[in-house]
Structure formats: C-alpha cells, structure tokens
C-alpha cells in the first residue's frame, strides 16, 4: 500500500517533468497552426525549418561557437590545469578563486560584465565577442575537470619515464597526457554542452543580427508560439539525448574501472556544478 503510494508519487513528479517535453515533441508533428486542434501527423514544420534561413543561421552559429569555444577552452584550460598543478600557496588560491567566479556568478552578471568589456574595447558585438565569452565561461569547467586527474596522478610516473630515458616532452606526451585524458575529454564535452545550452551570456555579448539557437528561440517565443520552434526543440532534445548517452557510457565505463561514482550522479555534477560549487570553493582552495 505504502509502496504503491510511493510509486504513484514518483510517477506524478516524473509526469510533471516530462509532460512539457512530450507536448513539445507531439506538437512538432501537428498539422495545424493552432494548438487547440490536432490536425493530423505531418513533417511540415521540419520542412519549414529547413527553409528558415534565420533558424538555420542560428543553428550554424551555435555549432560553430560550441565547437570552437570547446576546443579552444580545452587547450587553454588543460594547459592552465597542468600549470596550476605546480603552483602553491597564496598565488594558487587567488587564481583558483578567480577561476571560480564565472562558475558561481549568475550568468546575467557574467554576461553584462563581458559586454562592458567588449564595448570598452570598442569591439563590435557579434560572433567573435560571443565566441570569446563562451571560451571564458568554458575554461573554468575544463580546468576543474582536469585538475583532479592531475592530483590523482602518481608523480613518480613522470620520474619513472625520465628514468627510463624519456625527455620531459616525451614523458608528458606518453605518460601524463594519457593519464589525464579522461578529465580532458570530460571537460571538452562539458564545455561543448554548456556552450550549446547557453542563452543569457550569449544574449548580452552578441550584436544585432547574430544569434544562436537559444536567442532565436527566445525572440520567437516572445512573439508567440510557433510550431517551427517545436521542430527545432525536438531535434535539439534528441541531439542532447544522444550526447548525454555518449557521455554516460563513457563515464560509466570509466567508473566500472574505478568502481566509484555512479554515472547519473556524475552526469548531474558535470552539468550543474555551477550552482553547486560553493562548498568546493572553500574546500579546494584550502589545498
């Protein structure tokens, strides 16, 4: 009895969480512009989507920016983590605290502060500024993904490589890099998804005419509901789902090796560190 009640409660909450998504997907196949009626199944909105220069353009921007910002942030962030691993004391603490700022700050504050910078530097707001902003908020996530891997690293591994005749660069390539690779890839994927998902920061750092998907959805939604958005939503949802499955397979594979954390929690942590990092702020910086 109690068990059935519990199951019921869980079911209701999950219905609440999934209903909007299902409705969204359902209406992307509705052959009627008004929501009140079901006009039958159609792929019309997907067709219209393919014709819509505006949406396609913003999709292109989203992907370009996600790929570039994730790649650049991964390179800079990984190098930074490797460098920071050697720093100690107050300097390290200061750097780490500043690194946490974009993670903890409300997006809107990050967004307007970057906008002020670009205006101050007389850079025209557009794709480039949006890219710079995305790299900026992605780097800390990469650093925070790679640093723990470096901390776990047995320092003797590096020495063992040198001992066996490896030059420092060879030792780095053949020993250090493979060891921290899981962290780097996690950081890369994290950066990529955060970039795709971002609205607020993009909104403030872009200029007229240059929009990513989030911005396009925002402006379309403000003008009223449009079935084409449903089609975009469905596609994005599927894309994210596929990405999520890949990430989780990766993570759980790694976990089964390490036997430690379960994957759903890790996936959750990755996605939502930004709000949950307060504790780590104090804890990690003490180190």
């Amino acid at each position: 009895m109690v068990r059935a009640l519990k199951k019921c409660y869980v079911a209701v909450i999950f219905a609440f969480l999934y209903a909007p998504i299902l409705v969204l997907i359902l209406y992307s196949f509705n052959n009627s512009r008004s929501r009140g009626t079901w006009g039958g199944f159609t792929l019309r909105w997907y067709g219209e989507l393919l014709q819509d220069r505006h949406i396609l353009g913003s999709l292109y921007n989203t992907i370009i920016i996600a790929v570039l910002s994730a790649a650049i942030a991964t390179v800079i962030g990984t190098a930074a983590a490797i460098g920071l691993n050697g720093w100690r004391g107050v300097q390290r603490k200061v750097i780490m605290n500043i690194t946490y700022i974009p993670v903890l700050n409300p997006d809107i504050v990050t967004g307007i502060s970057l906008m002020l910078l670009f205006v101050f530097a007389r850079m025209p707001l557009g794709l480039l500024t949006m890219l710079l902003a995305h790299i900026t908020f992605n780097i800390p996530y990469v650093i925070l993904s790679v640093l723990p891997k470096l901390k776990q690293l047995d320092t003797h591994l590096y020495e063992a490589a040198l001992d066996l005749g490896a030059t420092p660069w060879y030792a780095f390539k053949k020993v250090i890099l493979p060891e921290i690779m899981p962290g780097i890839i996690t950081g890369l994927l994290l950066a990529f998804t955060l970039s795709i998902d971002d609205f607020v920061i993009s909104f403030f750092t872009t200029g007229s005419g240059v929009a990513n998907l989030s911005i396009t959805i925002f402006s379309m939604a403000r003008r009223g509901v449009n079935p084409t958005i449903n089609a975009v939503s469905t596609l994005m949802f599927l894309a994210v789902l596929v990405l999520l499955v890949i990430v989780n397979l990766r993570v759980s594979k790694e976990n089964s090796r390490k036997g430690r954390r379960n994957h759903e929690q890790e996936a959750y942590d990755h996605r939502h560190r930004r709000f949950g990092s307060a504790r780590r702020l104090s804890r990690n910086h003490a180190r």
Partner: protein
Amino acid sequence: MAECIIELRNVSKDYDGTEALRDINLKIYRNEFVTLLGPSGCGKTTTLRIIGGFEQPTTGEVVFNNTSINHLPPYKRRVNTVFQRYALFPHMNVYENIAFGLRIKKLDEEVIEYKVKNMLKLVNLAGYEERKVDSLSGGQQQRVAIARALVNEPDVLLLDEPLGALDLKLRQDMQLELKHMQQSLGITFVYVTHDQEEALTMSDTIVVMREGRIQQIGTPIDIYNEPKNAFVADFIGESNIVDGIMVRDYLVEFANHRFECVDAGFGENEPVDVVIRPEDIKLVPESEGMLRGEVRSVVFKGVHYEMMVENGEYVWIVHDTLMQPVGSKVGMVITPQDIHIMRKEDQG
C-alpha cells in the same frame, strides 16, 4: 672491490632552508650491493634521488665513472630506478611498460620483443605480456617494475624501498631473488630501506644514515658487530645501551661494576656509551654473575626467550634459549669482546 662507479663528494641538500643531507661522501663500486639504511627522514631517499637525477644537490658533486653528472637530467643517466610504489604506467600493459625505455632508444621491434620476453622470463612473469598492470598482484607489479628498469641494462639500479608494500613472506622471497639477480647480472644495486634485517640479508655494504648524515659505512658483519655509535647499535638489532665511564684503556665501569674490555684510546674517566647485544649476556647462577638481577618478564620469541632482568637502576634485555622463571634471581656474565664502547654522540 675494483672500480668506483658512483661517488658522492661533499653532497648537501637543503629544502627551503631545512637541511636534508649534510656533507655526504660515499663511494659505490662496480657490482656492489649497497644499502642505504636509516629511519624515515634520514635522507636515504633524497640520496637515491640525487643519484637518479630527480634532485640537484645544493652543494657537492655527483661523479659517475669519473665524470661529474650534477647537471645531467635523469633521462641521460645510465641509471634506472625501481620506485617505491612501482610507478607502472597504468594505461599500458605489462609488455608496453617494459618496452617503454627500449622504444625511446628506437630499437627494432624484434629486438624489443626479444629483450622484453627475456626479461619477463628472468622475473618469472613469462606469459603476462598482455596483462593490464592493475590486474597484477603487488609482487607481480614489483617484478614488472624491476624488469622495466633492468631491461635498459643500466650500470646502476636504484631501488627505493621496493619491497615495502609486500607481505613478510613475499618480501623474504624477493630479497633472495633480488640478491640472486644482482649477482648473476653483475649490476650495481643501490637499495634504500628502513628494514635492518633486509639490509643485513642482502647487502655487500651498508650505509647507515641519520638526520641527513652518514653514521657508518661497512659490511653487514662490521655494522652489526662493531657499531660505531649508540644510534647504529640501536638501529641494527636490539641492544642494551647504558652510560659508562672509561676508567682507563681496557677497563670500563657501568652498572656499578668494572669490566675488562677490548677498547682503548679513550680519555681517562671519559663518559661513554656501552652497547651490549641481548644474546651476548649469559645467564648464570646468581653467585657466579658479574651482575645480579631479578627476572621481571619473559616472552617466548620462537628460537629464544626474551627476558627483562632488573639490576639496580638498569633493566637488561637478555636473549637465551633457556628460560628463567619470572622472579628468579640470576647472575649475568659478559665477556670482554662483547662489550662495545662508543664515544658519546654529542661529542662526535
């Protein structure tokens, strides 16, 4: 012993002002098994790391085959290390770990394979090529680490407490195996340990260290029988160490009794440390003893009994194969050769 292969000359090492090593002078000869022995923090690992090239001496010189190698990075030294926790590359299998150094030398694949297989045979791991290193037991990892170092045919192999993580039985087996390998391969071993038994079992030469300084260098027999000071005596095996006074040459007073001894060259009435091994005290009927005492406790140790005998203000540790019951009065006899006299530390 022939040729000196490594020499440390006046080597000191400071870490941010704290002294880790002070004025180390040490010669290591070809084919020698040298053990650096001492409690943790004595500087033995630092010494090893300086030879390996992972640390630079603050002052002094490291000489290899008569050339100074102070500024030679680790990867150019003909020296290989077996690390304390093995430091095997976790992303490579056994074969790749062992082949690592050979690949850097860009040897042909057949040569590499031949050498790796040979080495695996040597360490009794034939057939383990494809295994992941974290699927191996501690003892097996240990062997891989040794194989990985030896396959490069170093002139000197450095071993940093390589047996520390193994259980007692395995450790004893590995001690013999290592010694055997060293002899058959004819490689110089420099071995770091804090385990005096291990040092006594394996070494040609033992270097006892304490607080960054060398206390004594000698063969295991020398070190055991003729410890240079109370620290060495205490660290190597169990000892009774008491305060004494050198009355004159060949006569020492301790425990309110004068003893003949074999030492000379101290000042008259100079305070000294007197070291007597527990197995060198013979228990006799009370009336025949030089010292008299009462047995306070008895512990069975397998081969012998360990008894605490109280005599005035002193409690003596005595090892004997015959047990005296607690409370019995006994006499103790110590022969002159078994009395080791040492200068007081703070004067040296």
